[in-house]
């Protein structure tokens, strides 16, 4: 009379496969992706409207992309160093990641200024205004990552207690790779569609 439900699968084996905090980060990444998907689809819709003005991709963005990719490499090496218990190089690499993140942010802002100087300010409704909104929001996400890296660096300086739990750095590096990939997506998006 009632649907019979299979209960044979062994649930206990599936449990705790992935650390809940890592899983949470993946869902958060999905969520942030939705926000940028909303913004870039707004861009595509808006492009069809009259009065659309596009812009030259400033050279700074190529440099900032390089900085971003390098920072991803740094965080990956930091993770490896942490797992190998090379705490000293871990400290240096995590600081390097944060510095490269700051370099990225500064280069982005310089890039915005280059566009701004061509006369494409906030007034209007073209590609440049979308760039300011979308890439600006991305910069905020990178800034959040920089703060996280600095906090982790300061924690690693602590003499009294030392944690060998790699979950926090793994979660942070996942986020860092994500904002990197997000920028690469946005960069290609702005290169191709304008």
């Amino acid at each position, binding site marked *: 009379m*009632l*649907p*019979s*439900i*299979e*209960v044979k*699968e062994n*649930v*206990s084996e599936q*449990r*705790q*496969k*992935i650390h*809940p*905090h890592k*899983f*949470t980060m993946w*869902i*958060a990444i*999905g*969520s*942030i992706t*939705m*926000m*940028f*998907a*909303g*913004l870039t689809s*707004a861009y595509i*819709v*808006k492009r069809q*409207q*009259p*009065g*659309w003005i596009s812009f030259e991709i400033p050279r700074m963005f190529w440099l900032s992309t390089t900085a971003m990719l390098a920072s991803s490499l740094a965080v990956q090496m930091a993770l490896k160093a942490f797992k190998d218990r090379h705490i000293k190089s871990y400290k240096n690499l995590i600081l390097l990641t944060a510095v490269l993140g700051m370099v990225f942010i500064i280069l982005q802002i310089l890039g915005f200024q280059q566009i701004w100087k061509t006369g494409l*300010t*906030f*007034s*209007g*409704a*073209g590609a440049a*205004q*979308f760039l*300011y*909104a979308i890439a600006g*929001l991305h910069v905020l996400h990178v800034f959040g990552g920089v703060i996280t890296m600095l906090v982790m660096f300061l924690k690693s300086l602590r003499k009294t207690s030392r944690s060998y739990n790699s979950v926090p750095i793994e979660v942070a590096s996942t986020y860092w790779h994500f904002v990197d990939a997000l920028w690469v997506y946005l960069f290609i998006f702005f290169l191709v569609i304008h």
Partner: protein
Amino acid sequence: MSSDTILHGHSDVVTSHDVHLDEHGAHHHKETFITKYIFSQDHKMISKQFLITGMIWAIIGGLMSVIFRLQLGYPDTTFPILEDIFGKWAPGGKISPDFYYALVTMHGTIMVFFVLTGGLSGTFANFLVPLQIGARDMAAPFLNMLSYWAFFTASIIMISSLFLTAGPASGGWTVYPPLSALGDATDGSKAGMDFWIVAMVFFVVSSLLGGLNYITTILNMRTKGMSMVRMPLTIWALLFTAILGVLSFPVLLSGLILLLFDRHAGTSFYLSDIFIASTQKALPNEGGSAILFQHLFWFLGHPEVYIIILPTMGLVSEVMAVNSRKPIFGYRAMVGSLFAICILSLLVWAHHMFVTGMNPFLGSVFTLLTLLIAVPSAIKVFNWLTTLWKGNLRFTPGMLFSIGFVSMFISGGLTGIFLGNSTLDIHLHDTYFNIAHFHLVMGVAAFFGMFAGVYHWFPKMYGRYMNNTMGYIHFWVTMIGAYLIFWPMHYEGLAGMPRRYMDYSNWVSFRQFEDLNRFISTVAIVVFAVQLMFVFNFFYSIFKGRRVTTQNPWGATTLEWTTPIRPGHGNWVSEIPEVHRWAYDYGKDGREFISQAEPVGSNESSGH
């Protein structure tokens, strides 16, 4: 009621160490007043914080509706007391048009977001997810605490906007540009609108932090033996709700960010060719599209109504099975239809925009997808009715509200089929027909589900019962009142009476509804008063309610009733119980119910 002994008489599962009151969990740690009641990381306390904040919001939001119903029901009468309270907003005891718009805008915002999203999901996901899946707390208790405090911050900002000189946002709860983007156009688009946006940003953050936690906890922290198909339907519903929230709220955020740019940076994402009458100025903005905002808004906005109704569907399924003493009918169909609703709800947003001049072909696609939602909805209704069918019904207040929920959901759902048609919508859009539809199907129905949940789980929350007599009065007055308020609105809407007007007496066509409007307003005031009685019952019962003396007062199968009567942080004193069966073994092998934690006997009939 004489069924009290039946309702609370199940002592056969009480084991020796579990009958202590105020039992503290194995994870007990030193708690101060601040860590226990304010910055608590215990999911149960966070749940209560959400519930009580939500109730305060509901009172404010409900009171607003009473004030604007006074205007609608008695457009010619003055109420000097309104001037005493609201000053310049109600000159001569009659509310001003600006105030009217502010009231309807804030009523919508408060009810949709702060009560039925934050208050509802925040309460029941926090409370039930760890308890029903067998976890000591959420995956990330600290984020969970942040989720409440982001909600609290959003609440403070939103409530502050009510006290601004220019008043709160008043361009409708959907804050469509260009009105919402132009502070010069109306007082309601000045600072109030900024407060609204900032409050909503905090709200979205709160909702995301909560949603992340619910999903992770449900997928990763289930106790041994709790496979997905053994989860109670409440958990399934809360899982789909959280997924919808995580996918759609960020899109609202992107829409609001662009709106902020238009308001303050001079961009023209949504603005084009505008002349403002009040300042006699033509704006330089060109090339913007107001429709773009509507797309971004409704991409959240439509899933949002399911974010409101899905959790209550779960609550109702659970309360109904427990109080019918029968397994829920069609468990898998219930899960499947929740899933179908979840997917479809992401694909129908443009049915809110049929009359924006969209391509008729596109309109017909959205009509089709919209009407498809009737299928899983009907499956659910059918399963609820068949769960009730020949059940051993116990009419607790929770059960009555569950049955009321189904009634409201049918009544409101049927008119959705009218409105989902792009052709019929040309006549029905922005009329009282629409108001009646969504109030019944997602307003009253969701409130009923929430009430069912509160009455049913109150004993687990506070170790006491709510007063039944007040519960029954609450139910019957609300049930009858809700129909008396919203049923007549269908007729008004079919006659073309538009929403958002504060006075209809200038129209010959709508003047005929004068008596009807007065009647609706009178009933609305009575129903509001009864809700205050519920609030009284709630707080009175926390301190003075009848004490719960057995561990499993409703005779339910789910895990939350295997915890001590007043569980501490950590929920279970010793080991978390292992789960051996699905959540709906009622009336099996001659036994009234079998707890999920009970191993399957050797001669037990095969089943679930």
